């Protein structure tokens, strides 16, 4: 990850999740860690939202609860003592949310739950449309959460790759070659070469580059949520299993 810098906000000297736990007590380090955490939470708010929705809460309540959850945890430094050796960000976040929901229910249900905090900007997103699709695919709130989490990491990496290529005017190339990212080329190379006005050899090279780049981006995104390289592969295997679960 370090030899070829990854552009965009995802670039960190160390992974986010380990950064959160390892922040030194000095202010700069704390602020840095908190910013990293906030960014991480923003990236993964949706799987949690879907989880809350699937527990029977209405859209409004789910927004409120997800918002409060993040706000409260970031405010109270709930993550500062996170034990990154033992938990992955994904399972930690889900556990914390379950805990939060359990306790939240006991509080008066009518009480307004910190709705004044605006951590996630709902206007820009349409969680309900996404949820409507997502809820078709999973049978159980926790599976739903894991699945949405996996999709979130992939779509983040794909988007980053698309943006990167768009910057250098290669959007068309991305669209033509993205099918190769699943590890299987269905469309014949000659046809693509003709369409992109490239030689077949150049297409081969481009595919190779695209795969490498995508792999790096995705692994970097997931690396942010685990604590070491070994966990990274485990987590990826787990997410593959999640996506293949029926």
């Amino acid at each position, binding site marked *: 990850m370090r030899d070829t810098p990854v552009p965009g906000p995802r670039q960190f000297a160390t992974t986010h999740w380990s950064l959160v736990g390892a922040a030194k007590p000095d202010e700069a380090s704390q602020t840095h860690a908190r910013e990293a955490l906030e960014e991480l939470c923003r990236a993964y708010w949706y799987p949690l939202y879907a989880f809350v929705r699937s527990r029977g809460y209405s859209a409004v309540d789910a927004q409120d609860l997800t918002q409060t959850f993040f706000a409260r945890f970031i405010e109270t430094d709930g993550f500062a003592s996170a034990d990154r050796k033992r938990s992955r960000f994904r399972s930690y976040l889900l556990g914390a949310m379950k805990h939060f929901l359990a306790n939240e229910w006991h509080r008066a249900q009518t009480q307004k739950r910190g709705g004044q905090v605006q951590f996630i900007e709902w206007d820009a997103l349409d969680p309900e449309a996404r949820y409507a699709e997502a809820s078709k695919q999973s049978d159980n*709130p926790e599976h739903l959460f894991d699945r949405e989490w996996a999709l979130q990491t992939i779509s983040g990496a*794909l988007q980053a790759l698309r943006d990167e290529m768009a910057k250098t005017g290669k959007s068309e190339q991305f669209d033509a070659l993205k099918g190769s990212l699943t*590890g299987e080329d269905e469309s014949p190379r000659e046809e693509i070469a003709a369409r992109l006005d490239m030689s077949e050899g150049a297409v081969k090279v481009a595919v190779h580059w695209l795969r490498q780049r995508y792999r790096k981006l995705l692994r970097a995104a997931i690396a942010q949520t685990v604590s070491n390289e070994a966990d990274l592969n485990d987590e990826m295997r787990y997410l*593959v299993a999640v996506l293949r679960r029926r």
Partner: protein
Amino acid sequence: MNTSEKDKCKRCGAVIPEKSTEKLCPACLMSGALAPPGGEADTISMAPGESLSIYGPLEFPCEFGGYRLLGLLGRGGMGTVYEAEQLATGRRVALKMLAQQLDSPDLRQRFLREGRLAAGVNHPNSLYIFGSEEIEGLPVITMEIAGSGTLKDKLKKRGPLPVTEAVDAVLDVISGLEAAFAAGVLHRDIKPSNCFISPDGSVKVGDFGLSVSTLAKTDTFITAHGKILGTPAYASPEQLRGDTLDVRADIYSVGATLFTLLTDRAPFEGDNAMQVVANAVNQKPKPLTELRQDVPFGLERVVARCLAKEPDRRYADYTALRNALLSFSSKEPEPASMNIRGSAGWIDFLIAFLIPYVALMLFIGAEKLIAWPLYERTLYSTRYYIALWSFGFLYFSITEGIWGAGLGKYLKGLRVVRTNGRPPGFGRALIRILIPILSIEVIRNPLNMVLMSDADWTWIQTVTYVATANACAWIPVLFTLRARRENGFATLWDLFTGTRVIIKPRGTVRPSIEPPVKLEIATEAADFLGPYRIIKEIVPGKWIAATDPVLRRPVWLLRRKSPELSLARRNLARHGRLRWLQKVETPEATWDAFEAIEGIPFSSLTEGGKHLPWSNLRHWLHDLASELWAATGDKTLPAELSLDHVWITAQGRAVLLDEPWPDVQTDAERIPVGDLAGQQRFLSTIAACAESAGLPLHARGVLQNLADAKFEKLSFLAGILGGFLEKSAEVSRGIRAGSIFMVPLYLWTVAFVGFFQGELVQQWKDSPGSFIMITIMLVLGAIALFQLLGLVFRSTIGHSIFRLVVVNAEGRPANRAMLLRRWAIVWLPLMLPMLFVALLIKRVEGIAFICALVLLGLWISAAVYAVIHPNRGLHDRLAGTWVVRR
């Protein structure tokens, strides 16, 4: 699920979302990135729904009896198994045929017995037997088809399985074998190739070809011709020797299977069968950790124990084996909260330190134990003091170091583990206890030395001693302040030793039901309906109880009202529904034969408005929610349901009947369940049968959402209910006793010993009785005061340690006014007369003592009453409250 084939990846079958991943298969996108750059792909081929390999000499498809053979599934010891379609029903089955060259009366007997034995087992983790017949002179057995190969195929394709995956598979196998054993069947041939994988990934035990009834234990493994049936590599030594077998022989094979799943090799190998047998009988298996580094040490021990040569040294039953394996399964360990750890810790602390303390006080005396070290300050003078602590240190380092838990943690279901899941070991366990104790002692002792100079021991010294002891006892609490859920509730000593306290995963135990009438098996001559012998007409002309004479299995025959059952219903193989066996035609009517399951109709459990404990009902609600969800998916749900449609099996499982049970006359409301609202209403009707007062707080919110029909998918509800099965549902007597007595007992012991030692030094020994009484009263007074203050938080120390909550008649947490009333009922009858008694003491001590004793006796009886009725003590009755789980 509402996804068509075009939304699925052609390669791996995963669902492709409409948005978010550029219309590419997310699973392939993820697994593609697992490949190291430029290198070979990391093999994670787990293609679900993989087609079964078809090979063999026969040409497929071909017709055979009433079946169309579609392909060869495999060859076993006794015969060949084909994938087939039953022409009459369209059902896909596995058809097992006795190999022609083996056809002898003896083997034929054996073969049919397999069908009979396996037909007695009905469990999601065991392949179901549909029937047994003779086609073209050859006996065949038709059974459920799992669909995704065997564990052996999986091994062949992927090599050794990840630890959690292997353990999960074996846990499934254990469940299947447990059901078989409950039905009186020993499998005797468990190995990876006899464990079948279904499309949802669960594993089913099959091939009962070598099975015997547990009644016929001496049936030998080696046939009369000296031919060994089965695979010696997985057979227990006693089985290879032809000795008497019991469940532990199967447990051995389960261990051998797990060994193979983890290493891709059998525990014993050899160039030929005889050598394998010799090795299996004489040699020790290679330690797992030598073959594979990432196997946790504890798991190696479990496997080694299964593979012990002597049956006595193996696990005695499946429950023990399952409990040992659960912590290595894919369930992530749940960190134990500080509350539960605190209560477990106190129990261990009392055993480790209070017992030697009291013993030393009685035999050595306070002077030698406490005063000497303070005044003399030599190592020799502290010998008893050191002995006191050493006992406690030994207790913790041995129990937690080796087993991961002392008595307290064991009772609370907690385990101390290292971050790699192993027990901490002696050294780490010692450091774990040294840190909190030393943190107290290094402050307390110098403090005592400064405060108590060489003056005589007076009451001032006593008060100082007790005060410093009680103040310093809080020091370790400071080290727990950083413990949060997210760091696994790590305290300083957890962090320092790299250990954590987790809740030991446990399997859920279903409440079994004693059915009022056992299902009969008709053996005498009786009328036949099709192939079945009629036992009894439950409703004449409508619902008949009968027996399958070949498989000796009870069946129900239902007269068909509507046209043909749908194919989906006929093929249904879920635990939540009765299996359809076949159609029986008579001149008058058409009948559907269903398997009959021993049990009781749900409505008879709730007769007369009786309510059911949540600990039972939650299992059934979960079963029904899962079944409704699944049945909606494959359109096998009846249009209307009522409480009479619910059948509770003897194993405590809820089954949805297609027709209402006719034998009870209830006017249960018929609820149309065509839509989600109706389904939630039906489930809510079931949920309403719960004893509302005993309902844990965690369930209440979800049931409220269910009553308001707020769930958008039943599977969500099923998932949540599934999670509830892991939680404690009831306030047990032990928990209630703990919440009432633990804090007073602890405070009293500390106070009593504190006073006692002070008194002893002063040689003031008169009237120990009133002395005990006074200390008890002081402690109870203190508790009453604490509880009054606790009203601010609407909880008490005892309740928060044991996760209890006081609720009102509606089941909501009681408000402060109600709690105050409850408090007054508990404490005022004790405390007000006590004030009077205290005034009496000066004048007539004897009478005062008796009065106090009577009052205390009354209070304790009320407390004991509350323990006997843990949900509702006398004071709860008077205050109109209940105590439930949080």
